[in-house]
């Protein structure tokens, strides 16, 4: 279960679209812990990218 697959799975969860095939693959993983950690990491990335975007918009206008 390489890290890249976990990132792909969490990203598709954020978008809310996932194919049956990928889901079966993702569920081969034996524990949900990496998914949760990567999920939290991606939420932080989501927050900081939004903060950056907001500062950029304020600077722009």
């Amino acid at each position, binding site marked *: 279960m390489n890290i890249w697959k976990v990132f792909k799975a969490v990203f598709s969860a954020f*978008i*809310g*679209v*996932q*194919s*049956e095939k990928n889901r079966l693959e993702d569920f081969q993983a034996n524990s949900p812990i990496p998914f949760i950690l990567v999920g939290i990491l991606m939420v932080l990335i989501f927050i900081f990218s939004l903060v950056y975007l907001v500062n950029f*918009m*304020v600077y722009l*206008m």
Partner: protein
Amino acid sequence: MKERSCSSAVLIILAALWSVSAQADWALNMTEGVTEVSRSIYSLHMQIFWICVVIAIAVFSVMFWSIIHHRKSVGAKAEQFHENTTVELIWTIVPVLILVAMAVPATTTLIEMYDTSDSDVDIQVTGYQWKWQYQYLGEDLSFFSNLSTNPDEINNKVEKNKNYLLEVDEPLVVPIGKKIRFLVTSNDVIHSWWVPAFAVKRDAIPGFINESWTRIDEVGTYRGQCAELCGKDHGFMPIVVQAVTDEDYALWLTEKKASIAAEVAAAARVWSLEELMVRGEQVYQKNCAACHQVGGQGISPMFPALKASAIATQAEQRDAHIKIVLEGRAGTAMQAYGAQLSAVELAAVITYERNAWGNDTGDIITPQSIQSMLKSK
């Protein structure tokens, strides 16, 4: 039989609704308002509204079409497809694009709303439990704005007027065309100062100051209400703003300051019992009747009675009576009116409370005796 009675019942309800709706005033939509900000908010509102209507029509038409055609009773055979990521991607990406398109004008409007720089008039708006105080910074002018709807209208004894619950005794007067900056704060709990026509809504937080601004384009009277639950009379502390031309505004300012000066000067002269009683009843009606009731019987236990009460009849309680009216009682709805009413009003209302409803103590509280205990502002 069951179907026929059911349909006639529906007809009767529809007829009743129709008659009620015929002469009703069906305001359906948000006001466009009289400021640039309120108009841009109105356009944002209509844009997102029409986007939602279009998506709703698309989704529901597919759904109802499928409800009609894919029914078992018409012999529809159920297919077994249960996945199509491309379709799902499309109906996820498209809403995101629509929202991004909406976010741009929303951002410009929001940034415009937060730009309170170089204002011409600064007004401090302070929320009290159940009234507003307006202070014109730099003009040394401040007054209170109370609900002025007749209690008989509220208790359905008298016909309700057009501006029922949206009328005050002292409206806020502002010039048109000028940038007006509101500094909103509160004296007790959280209120929210809202005038729909300006699209200005700012929460009043005790201990903190929030700012907002507006520039009004048209002369007129604009009404609003408190928009944050603040206790018993949350629905009874309206906001009335009169937008006038520059000349009228300057005129009003001088005339208003003169009337306040006259009020202070009036404290110097000698007031007779009758004069104090007349003025006292007006002040009582506006500030005290809401809790202590018009007849002075109050509502136990929260609002104690004044009629035939020890504090309002016994001579040795006279100073305690004055102290409680001036300093209020912390943690209860009884406010410190010393900071809110003039010396004449305070003297008059205390005299009224000590002589009305059969209390007849004959005491006269003079404005001079109150003046020394008051704030200098």
